[in-house]
């Protein structure tokens, strides 16, 4: 019976991943201390064994990839990748923001994600294997995100979790597109969620918009709120208290000044790209925010965010490197790029660490991944080598 299923898998449209072994001088499994001279054995896209070279025998004939350092495939917790393309041409490859209404929680990320976008293979060459991507933080409720593996096949085949979040944006990011003041932003969101609550109670929730809002008020998925300043973070927490939904904070330039409140409300942070420019609502951003959040016991993950110009995408590994250069321990930075991020996205059973049975997602490096002068030498997704070279 099992054999039959395996045969069917081979016959399906996706080519079966080859059996593969990874040998690394330092293997970061994120399931314990790093392993010296570690081996990961991969079969049918899953991890079959993890251990030292002495513990894990590589069957003869298995293709072996060697690296100085190997880590779980890297995760970008918040991006617009695949919705925003390399050419930056409106009407062609910019699907991150629809201005047809300020409140459009029904806009699905999967419907706008272009798996063949050039920037996807670009970031993949830095070891990024999984991205939570979707609409930009450009209106009060701009849409949804979904979690996708960067195979570049179809959004449906590559999806890990869809939808993963419904989006909301407070403060200057969404002012002017709909509500014109902060008070009005809050007032409109209250109307939206009160309406959703009433419809749920009355059993009258109908339509795509209502469906999306139900996911949030019934706590099936969290609301991802983009807010940068302490003031806007406080507003987000007020909404959470009023409606009781789950929430993750995105951006969070001044999150450390709201640490006590975030911790009390159990709201984790998807930290803005560290190399975002310190302008406007982000003027007080700090390279030390990840280190401080970590000290303060607030869970966080790294993001590449949204870029409107040059460069058109950020590489989440490089954003984490800036945090490492500013007081964050390597292990904590790696956690924010792997298992920690997977937990905050609710995908930790599939990816984020190297453990038997999990998806074989790995990033290989010729040195310390956080050194600017190191290179990613291979990226593996579901046991498939999607990048080999020297990036």
């Amino acid at each position, binding site marked *: 019976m099992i054999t039959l299923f395996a045969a069917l898998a081979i016959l399906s449209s996706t080519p079966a991943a080859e059996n593969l072994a990874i040998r690394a001088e330092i293997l970061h499994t994120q399931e314990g201390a790093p392993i010296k001279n570690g081996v990961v054995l991969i079969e049918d896209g899953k991890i079959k064994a993890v251990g030292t070279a002495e513990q894990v025998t590589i069957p003869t004939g298995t293709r072996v990839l060697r690296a100085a350092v190997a880590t779980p495939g890297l995760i970008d917790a918040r991006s617009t990748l695949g919705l925003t393309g390399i050419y*930056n041409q409106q009407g062609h490859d910019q699907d991150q923001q629809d201005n047809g209404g300020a409140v459009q929680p029904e806009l699905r990320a999967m419907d706008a994600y272009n798996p063949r976008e*050039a920037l996807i293979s670009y970031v993949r060459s830095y070891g990024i294997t999984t991205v939570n991507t979707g609409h930009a933080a450009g209106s009060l409720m701009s849409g949804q995100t979904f979690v996708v593996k960067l195979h570049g096949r179809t959004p449906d085949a590559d999806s890990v979790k869809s939808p993963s979040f419904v989006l909301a944006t407070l403060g200057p990011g969404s002012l002017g597109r709909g509500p014109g003041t902060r008070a009005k932003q809050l007032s409109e969101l209250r109307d939206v969620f009160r309406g959703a609550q009433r419809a749920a109670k009355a059993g009258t929730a109908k339509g795509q918009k209502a469906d999306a809002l139900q996911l949030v008020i019934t706590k099936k998925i969290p609301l991802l709120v983009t807010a940068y300043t302490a003031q806007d973070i406080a507003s987000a927490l007020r909404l959470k208290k009023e409606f009781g939904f789950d929430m993750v904070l995105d951006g969070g330039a001044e999150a450390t000044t709201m640490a006590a409140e975030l911790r009390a409300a159990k709201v984790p942070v998807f930290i803005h790209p560290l190399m975002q420019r*310190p302008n406007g609502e982000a*003027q007080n951003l700090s390279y030390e925010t990840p280190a401080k959040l970590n000290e303060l016991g607030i869970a966080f993950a790294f993001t590449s965010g949204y870029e409107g110009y040059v460069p058109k995408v950020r*590489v989440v590994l490089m954003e984490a490197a800036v945090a490492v250069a500013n007081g964050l321990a390597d292990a904590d930075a790696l956690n924010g790029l792997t298992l920690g991020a997977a937990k905050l996205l609710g995908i930790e059973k599939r990816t984020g660490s190297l453990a038997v049975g999990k998806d074989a997602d790995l990033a290989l490096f010729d040195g310390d991944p956080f050194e600017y002068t190191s290179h990613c030498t291979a990226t593996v997704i579901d046991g498939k080598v999607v990048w080999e070279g020297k990036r």
Partner: protein
Amino acid sequence: MLFALAAGLCLLAPQTEPVTVYENAVIYPVSGPKIERGVLVIRGNKIESVGAAGAVTIPADAKRVDLNGKVLIPGLVDTHSHVGGGDGADESSPIQPDAKVWEGIDVQNPDFIRAAAGGLTTINIMPGSGHLMSGQTLYAKNRKARTVEDLFILGENGWIYGGLKMANGTNPIGTPPFPGTRSKSAALIRQKFQEAKDYQKKWKDWEAKKEGESPDRDPGLDAMVEALEGKRIVQHHTHRADDILAVLRLKQEFGLKVVLQHVSEGILVADEIAKTNTPCSIIVLDAPGGKLEAVNYSSETGRVLERQGVNVAIHTDDGITESRLFLRSAAYAVRGGMTESGALRALTLSGAEMLGLEKRVGSLEPGKDADFVVLSGSPFATRTRVLQTFVEGALRFDFNDPKMRVYAVGGPGAGHAVEPYLCCKGGN
């Protein structure tokens, strides 16, 4: 013999100037090989000597600073930046050589202290690229400034050092009077340089005879004549291979001194760039795209041009990349295959050459301005910090001073140059 004489003169410099000796440092002079246990002697605002411990005479009156094995590099030279919010040309026409960027610079902008936190001591502040010619640039010394004049580097007869900003490709294209095509861009700029040549001749003819009334002065054309004479270097924004070639054509036709700026598709015409001996100031980005001309951006531009023997500098284009991360830009070029020594030169001496300031800045050599940076470790390591930045001998940035540290790492107050009425600064 001349050198010995010059050295002798140095020793006779006025004794009132304070002398500071930085000892026990790993020194990258850039003009010469790395010195493992090096000594740097600063007299006033100039470098008096640099060399290995024991090989350098330490003046008796010197204040001595033990750097405990820290790293010393020259102050960094950024060949293309927009710090300080300066602008040049307005929307009235595509060619405005009369517009001076420094007349719009706000020296209170925290960009400047952030740049110092990145080790930047000399900055070519440019007007934008939305014009064929957007004005005169300023080669600024990143001194602590109260007025914009405090940033000036002055040459003979009070000449304010700066370049001429030009651009081609998509950015200057628009509706009339702006060009609508690349051909029109080339035609308009050729016509203007011809006008400048005519103006130059009119003045030369008059100067020769001094008969009758002098011709009228045109400050814009004066700046262009300086470019024709090679005194004012043309700093030319250009991305695409064909646009790069268009600049090389213009350079040849009018005998201009040109620095190619950005050079995103430089690797496609590296031969032509090398053959015409045209220096390149490149941008180093984390990813391609964002505009059509940057789609083919390559992280290997530095490597390829360096291998072709082209003089390569790296710039921030601050706002596009961040001055505080300037060393990172060069490290990233090394990631793309550039040599470490080439990448460090690209942040210092090569940049100085592209601004015509190589006699004053860009390396640690006797007689040059005392612009230098103290690093906690190797220049291109992720965890290395800029600890101190000195401009002309004066401490401009100190990581250990909390008031300055905030501009290096960010946090409450970092968005303001002067301490504001910030509620709860530093609160939990």
